[in-house]
């Protein structure tokens, strides 16, 4: 069956009342997460994964995916009305979005952002359908040596996630890999770093680790800063003028292209896509001096780009099993805990799962458009709920989630321990993304290396007899050299930063 037929079948499943409800809940929660400063989509997904254990796998992942891309919509509302980026990827929208709001054009800014987000997300979905299946088919020829190369390519993203210091990123990568080795060795049965604790024999469950690292630590960080309400601009007419519509249309088209292309590169996050789009818009504009003072292209381009990016970022996960960002890594965990291994075999072994999820992304984007424009007033009202109440309730949900993984307090303690560690890591500016990346990819790498070495009879040069693996190694080398060269000034500047 071709991709189109599969997609039609996927729509058949995604349009069932049950799955529509999961998509709607996910879209609403995603918007809420985007609206609320202090809780990111990665933390929200990590907190909610255990609660989806009781849902059918397709419904659970449809809901979590909708949270992931839905948060991009919600982030815009606070950015424009309150001058607070609900999400980091909406930060650049502050420059012109809030300026438009101060000029009484908040409605136009919000509607252009929502329509742009819808177009960017939907076009990215269409291209995802076209690209994902052929790439996955190609990757089906991969054996353990090719997987070693592929995972090492994925791990090279640590350099991209490095932030200010490559050394710190590599340290965190090592920590993640070692956490992943805890438990009984799958080949020899040897107990690795279990300290005689029976609960460690199966290894640490990734979900409470992620809930702690992202959820609890984020709450602690926010408690330290103390959140409060701020004043907001009023929402005017949602219809932009003809001139504004014309200016926005070109920006939306360019933002879609920028977001989608950057989304396909693992490690390039939505914030980079949004900033790149902003720079592109300023460059192509005949009146760049308007930017920063309420230029509608400065809203339309970045908001379109971050949504196109959110959907395109799923391609490396669907096709190769490589999570390109912490958010996608958490989503990938949801696949794994539901017995599904993201990667090329997902399309052949579980088409009944993957195509409804892709189809639901079209539906989710429509829902988000409907949820966002007419209900802007409602989302703004939610911001009036005192933060202390929200945090109290979120904490209880987090606790319930960790406990419900296997109805034991062990995972609650794991979550708390990693929450405190995550807080410490954030305070020390130690990036968490590399830890998550290696926590997920580490076991895959170790298994693939050991299988490859068994195939090669212990001869490491066996890798050189596999042209696909060699090609991927060459690409990895280019990525590492390119990223390291780009990072040199950052590392040197680290001292002064």
């Amino acid at each position, binding site marked *: 069956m071709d991709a189109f037929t599969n997609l039609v079948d996927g729509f058949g499943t995604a349009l069932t009342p049950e799955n529509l409800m999961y998509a709607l809940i996910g879209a609403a929660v995603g918007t809420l997460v985007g609206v609320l400063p202090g809780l990111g989509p990665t933390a929200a997904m990590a907190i909610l994964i255990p609660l989806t254990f009781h849902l059918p796998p397709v419904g659970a992942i449809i809901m979590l995916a909708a949270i992931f891309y839905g948060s991009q919509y919600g982030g815009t509302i606070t950015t424009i009305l309150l001058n607070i980026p609900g999400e980091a990827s909406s930060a650049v929208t502050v420059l012109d979005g809030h300026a438009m709001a101060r000029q009484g054009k908040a409605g136009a800014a919000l509607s252009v952002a929502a329509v742009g987000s819808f177009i960017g997300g939907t076009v990215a979905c269409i291209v995802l359908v076209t690209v994902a299946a052929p790439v996955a088919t190609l990757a089906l020829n991969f054996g353990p040596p090719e997987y070693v190369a592929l995972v090492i390519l994925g791990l090279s993203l640590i350099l991209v996630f490095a932030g200010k*210091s490559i050394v710190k990123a590599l340290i965190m990568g090592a920590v993640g890999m070692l956490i992943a080795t805890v438990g009984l060795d799958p080949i020899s049965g040897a107990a690795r770093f279990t300290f005689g604790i029976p609960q460690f024999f199966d290894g640490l469950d990734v979900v409470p680790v992620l809930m702690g690292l992202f959820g609890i630590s984020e709450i602690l960080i926010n408690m330290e800063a103390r959140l409060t309400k701020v004043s907001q601009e009023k929402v005017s007419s949602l219809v932009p003028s003809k001139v504004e519509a014309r200016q926005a249309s070109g920006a939306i088209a360019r933002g879609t292209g920028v977001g989608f292309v950057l989304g396909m590169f693992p490690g390039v996050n939505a914030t980079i896509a949004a900033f790149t789009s902003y720079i592109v818009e300023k460059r192509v504009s005949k009146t760049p001096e308007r930017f920063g003072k309420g230029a509608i292209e400065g809203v339309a381009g970045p908001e379109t780009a971050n949504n196109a990016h959110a959907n395109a970022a799923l391609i490396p996960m669907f096709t190769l099993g490589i999570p390109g960002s912490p958010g996608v890594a958490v989503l990938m965990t949801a696949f794994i805990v539901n017995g599904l291994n993201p990667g090329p075999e997902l399309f052949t072994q579980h088409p009944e799962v993957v195509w409804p999820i892709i189809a639901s992304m079209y539906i989710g984007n429509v829902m988000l458009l409907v949820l966002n424009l007419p209900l802007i007033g409602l989302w703004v009202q939610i911001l009036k709920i005192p933060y202390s109440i929200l945090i109290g309730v979120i904490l209880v949900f987090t606790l319930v989630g960790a406990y*419900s993984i296997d109805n034991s307090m062990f995972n609650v303690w794991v979550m708390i321990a990693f929450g405190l560690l995550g807080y410490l890591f954030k305070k020390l500016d130690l990036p968490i993304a590399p830890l998550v990346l290696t926590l997920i990819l580490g076991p895959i790498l170790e298994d693939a290396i050991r299988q490859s070495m068994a195939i090669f009879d212990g001869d490491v040069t066996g890798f050189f007899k596999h042209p696909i693996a060699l090609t991927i190694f060459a690409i990895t080398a280019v990525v590492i050299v390119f990223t390291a060269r780009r990072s040199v000034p950052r590392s040197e500047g680290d001292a002064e*930063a």
Partner: protein
Amino acid sequence: MDAVTEAGAPPAAPPATGRARLVHQATAVVFVAAAVYVAATAPGLGLYDGRGPGAGLFPFVVAIGWAVLSAVWFVQITTGRSAGTEGRFFDSLDGARRVALLAGGIILLAVALPILGFQLATFVFVALFLGVYGRHHWVVTAAVALGASFGLFTAFTRLLDVSLPVSSIPFLVDLGL
């Protein structure tokens, strides 16, 4: 996403060189020690056998890398080549107190859950949390605490069929807690 600092919050504490650096250095030392421990014990799991790498090879190699990188980080901190090591570890004493109280509260809640049961332990936790941080009207505090404890317990156990901890004290068990 960045937190929004309350308008009118106390000004940032004056820099006190050395405190943050000490925490960074201590962390680097702990990392080196942990890495050395892993590298020392991993060979006992088997580094290599006739079939290929053993259970200990992967952690051994990673631990060596971790130790070297952590040592490099320690040197960077000590020589002033690592960012964020100047000034205080906490921006304000008030912030540190809030974090310590919440972290301690979460730990106490986890300890209390199997003893008092989800409903009672969570009710007390949320009520105290809102009392300390929110300072809402007692009716609001009570309503939220009841909803987050007894309400959620009912929703999860009856509607979603998710079991939650119940008390281990017979008297409380008799009360349905």
